[in-house]
């Protein structure tokens, strides 16, 4: 017997993403993966999956699904929005069970991305070890693309396992407005001292040109000290490259593996999930930290996450 989720409305840009397709940078394949890994992992633990398993990532506008299985257990995490089961409001940050024919709908999202994990995951073969969708090269996920109305996404489990639903404490929203932390470089010497000061003291607006490849920012231009290009070298997620016009672009999960613009600074690992939730029209500020501080922040975030997941409770 088969199990699936029928896509009634696909949302704006709904893809399957997991922890990412790691280790293929040397053949030019982007890591992809969830823009907000913390929320992906939260959704997964709520349904008993491994934290880095694949889930739906919905961008700005949620999707509407009809359950074509006996039952499913599912959970939403990330930026919230009006979430309903057969029209009745239900909550983020806890799991729910839906039965055959029931309709799950997330409307507009008050943030950039939300995640929906389904117990047991998708009945889809991984590509290069991952279910993440890299739409630009049509690699992985559901046929390498975002969802369309009429798709039936196959599931591994025909019915939800017995047991109670689980809930997590809501994450603390205290981080809003705090600057994103960066480590300067890898090419900070290619910029004037004034450019570094400008980056660290003035706000940058997220433009409409923001997707899974990169987020174009707009603000005071950052002046190159000399050459405006380099012989291409490696990119990573969070790198802020600055083309000749001086307006930085923060690179995201579907970025090119390498590029020819100097990179003035790199957003630290512990703040990447916040970059992933950045909405067009909002402003970002940046604060420089030493790499040791960045590592300490990554460690603290991992500890805090483990502590939160240790507080799962039955509901």
């Amino acid at each position, binding site marked *: 017997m088969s199990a699936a989720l029928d896509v009634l409305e696909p949302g704006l840009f709904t893809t399957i993403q997991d922890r990412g397709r790691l280790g293929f940078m*040397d053949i030019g394949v982007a890591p992809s993966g969830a823009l907000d890994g913390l929320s992906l992992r939260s959704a997964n633990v709520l349904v008993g999956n491994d934290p880095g398993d694949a889930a739906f990532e919905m961008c700005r506008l949620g999707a509407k699904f009809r359950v074509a299985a006996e039952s499913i257990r599912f959970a939403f995490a990330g930026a919230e929005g009006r979430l309903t089961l057969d029209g009745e409001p239900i909550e983020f940050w806890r799991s729910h069970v839906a039965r055959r024919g029931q309709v799950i709908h997330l409307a507009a999202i008050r943030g950039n991305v939300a995640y929906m994990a389904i117990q047991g995951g998708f009945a889809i073969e991984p590509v290069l070890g991952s279910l993440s969708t890299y739409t630009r090269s049509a690699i992985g996920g559901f046929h390498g693309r975002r969802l369309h109305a009429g798709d039936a996404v196959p599931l591994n489990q025909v019915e939800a396992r017995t047991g109670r639903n689980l809930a997590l404490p809501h994450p603390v929203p205290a981080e809003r407005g705090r600057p994103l932390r960066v480590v300067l470089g890898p090419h900070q010497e290619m910029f004037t001292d004034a450019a570094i000061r400008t980056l660290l003291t003035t706000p940058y607006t997220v433009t409409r040109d923001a997707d899974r490849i990169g987020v174009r920012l707009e603000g005071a231009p950052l002046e190159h000290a000399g050459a405006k290009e380099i*012989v*291409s*070298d490696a990119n990573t997620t*969070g790198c802020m490259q600055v083309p000749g016009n001086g307006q930085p672009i923060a690179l995201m999960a579907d970025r090119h593996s390498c590029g020819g613009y100097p*990179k003035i600074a*790199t957003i630290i690992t512990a703040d990447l999930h916040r970059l992933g939730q950045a909405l067009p029209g909002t402003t970002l500020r940046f604060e420089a930290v030493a790499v040791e501080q960045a590592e300490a922040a990554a460690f603290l975030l991992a500890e805090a996450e483990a502590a939160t997941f240790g507080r799962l409770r039955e509901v």
Partner: protein
Amino acid sequence: MRLRLAGDGMLVAEFSTGIDPAASARARALDAALKARALSGVVATMPGIRSLAIIHDPVHLTTRALTAVLEELESGLTAAEAAPAHRWVLPACYEAPHALDLEESATRLGLSTDELIARHLAGRYTALMVGSYPGHPYLGGLDPSLYLPRRVPPRVRVPRGSIAMAELMTNVYPVEAPGGWNVLGCTAAPLFDLRWDNPSLLSAGDEVVFRRVGLAEHDSLLEAFTAGTLHPREACR
């Protein structure tokens, strides 16, 4: 070796700021030494045109610890140039409709199109880096007399298989993509296919030469590669 920090999750060991085959070879040698060490916390590596990039998990492998390992490994590298891992002979058709910029490039260089083709065919190229797009090689070793800047503005669509050149490198587009390189012709050989065990035909360090084919041979090769009756790992040796 200059170590550049790209946040807390990537370290770049840079051997040159320019296009430099020796720097590229050193990056590949360091990559091989690092792989042999099988260091826990290394997520991915990319040997490049002039540097080696290492993506690592900052919680399990700090920049300081990785730096110490790289410095130790680098000091132990021998100067001997490693032999290329593979040599590939890619069919190259320099005829219309594929030779989008051949005549213009020849004019700008003050060469006949035949002379430009001959100099491009004479090159023994090294894949200095595979990246930007899946399977896309940056090939070093272009005859310096063929130096041309990139096209401004870049083309919105460069056809799949296009063989192009810019500055001191030549390349092949594995998929249709935007790009500013000057297109001389097209190869029938596929460079990237997810059905292969290793989806990229080329790896950094591989040697590439081009073999001239006419339009008829190009079309029949393309048909055979597309149908799967021909595999570039056998047909392009």
